[in-house]
């Protein structure tokens, strides 16, 4: 398996963000919330403030570094939840078939029909702002593709020799699903999850931008943009850099996902770049 260029670039970008998130406490030059200095608000990038300051005189770089924690937590945790739900539903539906399959299928179609951002917005409205609500809202609304892939892969695996052999050897259904089917669908599930992390980071930013995600003064890339858009004339850097951080993070995970798919499925390589 040759390493692909997009995989390497994606991995580098994703690692950059992970390192930033983990080490934010040590490398951030200022405190993202307390160090507000209204005398020095809307300062352009300088040696003291590499990426300038925002409307309340807070260091944009420090806030971006801390914001990485929110974005990454939301991206990773919500995708983990989505993958578990999607895989469990998809595998069981494909394996057992019957009314359960019909039910899961129907539910998947319903989930596809409600745009996930709209769904997440509705859940956020009920749960109120905050990180836990975000994890739930984004973790429950984006499992339909995973479910579809898991289901169709299970359907084709179910009739293959090794699964039939395990069945005639008297393995239990759960055992077969865990040991025979799951390992064979992990690849595509991982690809969708990786691509989904990018989507979740975007969704978090959008919800926070709308004011229902992470509430200020806690920094999140989305709510930084809410404040900054009012200042776009006088302090464009306060808008440019948080957005750039989102872009780089999402690009990293998207490239990583694409690269993974290319490497896991060489046949697709020339077709989908």
């Amino acid at each position, binding site marked *: 398996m040759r390493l692909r260029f997009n995989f390497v670039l994606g991995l580098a970008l994703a690692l950059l963000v992970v390192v930033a998130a983990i080490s934010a406490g040590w490398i951030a030059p200022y405190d993202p919330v307390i160090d507000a200095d209204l005398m020095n608000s809307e300062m352009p990038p300088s040696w003291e403030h590499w990426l300038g300051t925002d409307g309340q005189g807070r260091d944009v770089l420090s806030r971006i570094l801390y914001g990485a924690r929110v974005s990454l937590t939301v991206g990773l945790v919500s995708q983990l939840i989505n993958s578990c739900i999607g895989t469990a539903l998809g595998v069981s539906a494909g394996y057992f078939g019957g009314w359960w399959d019909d039910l899961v299928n129907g539910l998947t179609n319903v989930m596809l029909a*409600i745009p996930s951002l709209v769904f997440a917005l509705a859940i956020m409205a009920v749960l109120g702002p905050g990180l836990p609500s975000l994890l739930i809202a984004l973790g429950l609304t984006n499992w339909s593709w995973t479910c579809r892939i898991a289901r169709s892969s299970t359907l084709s695996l179910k009739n293959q020799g090794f699964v039939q052999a395990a069945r005639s050897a008297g393995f239990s259904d759960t055992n077969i699903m865990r040991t025979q089917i799951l390992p064979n669908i992990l690849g595509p599930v991982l690809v969708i999850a990786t691509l989904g992390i990018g989507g979740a980071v975007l969704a978090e930013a959008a919800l926070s931008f709308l004011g229902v995600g992470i509430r200020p003064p806690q920094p999140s890339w989305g709510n930084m943009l809410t404040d900054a858009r009012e200042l776009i004339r006088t302090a464009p850097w306060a808008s440019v850099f948080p957005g750039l951080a989102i872009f780089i993070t999402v690009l990293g995970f998207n490239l990583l996902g694409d690269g993974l798919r290319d490497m896991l499925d060489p046949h697709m390589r020339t077709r989908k770049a």
Partner: protein
Amino acid sequence: MLRFIFRRTLQMIPTLLAVVLIIFVIFSVVPGSFISSLMAEGRNATNADVMAHLNEQFGLDKPLPVRLWDYLWGLAHFDLGISYRTREPVWNVIEPRLWPSIKLALAAMGFAGVVGIPLGFLAALKPGSVFDTGTMMLAVSGLSVPEFWLGLLLMYVFALQLGLLPSFGYQADSIRHIILPAIALGVSPMALLARTTRAGVLDVMNADFVRTARAKGLSEPRLVRAHVTRNVLVLILTTLGLQIGSLMGQAIVIEKLFSWPGIGSLLVDSVSARDIPVVQGAVIVIVLWFLVINMLVDVAYAAIDPRIKVA
């Protein structure tokens, strides 16, 4: 064909019912009801009589299944209930928002199609070339960029710095107002379309029947026109439909950013005002749009692809 459309329309009903059910259940567990949030805001509903009156007026005193039944019954008569906030029928609140939303979705999709499909096509004709690599990098970037940030940058450059276009707002007959939000909203479907088109063209160009067409002595332009285009269209139609269908939902942030008076901004405003009937109505409209577009895609499939049986 008419029967096919009719049957597909009937198939939408269970999905729609399930959506209503889910939304209804979600909002019935809202801890702070609309009435209590009115009280918290210290407006008028301070005494118990007023609260009881309001509860009765909006039917909130009845148990959940009864309320659900009432809502569905109303829905069957195209009655979406009464807005908590404006006391108007929900439909009257939604209706003026509909056309701006559809216009924005179609404009964004127009941009996505006009740019994305040719890009994907050209990229596929020379796979591995600089143009191809560049297009695919552009596509993955387009899928990664937060659309509201892109909108903000477009606004900054084209409206504030260059003064070429209005920075926000809506005018019924103005094309200039729609350009920036449509581009910001259209970038991600554009990127997706470029990718699917490229993959589709590569697929079709490698198909046996294209080799047959070459063996028949067709020139490349003729071959692409007569044998590739339609087959690619079949491959990208699903993506096209899914994108148009979900654009109305995806537009909420862009609508908010550009103060576009569409369903999306209505949804956001109603969520923060806890105007549940309007939220439900807006979600139903967004889902209905998705379902109708996908039905149209199926109809288009049946029209283009003879292998799909209509009857």
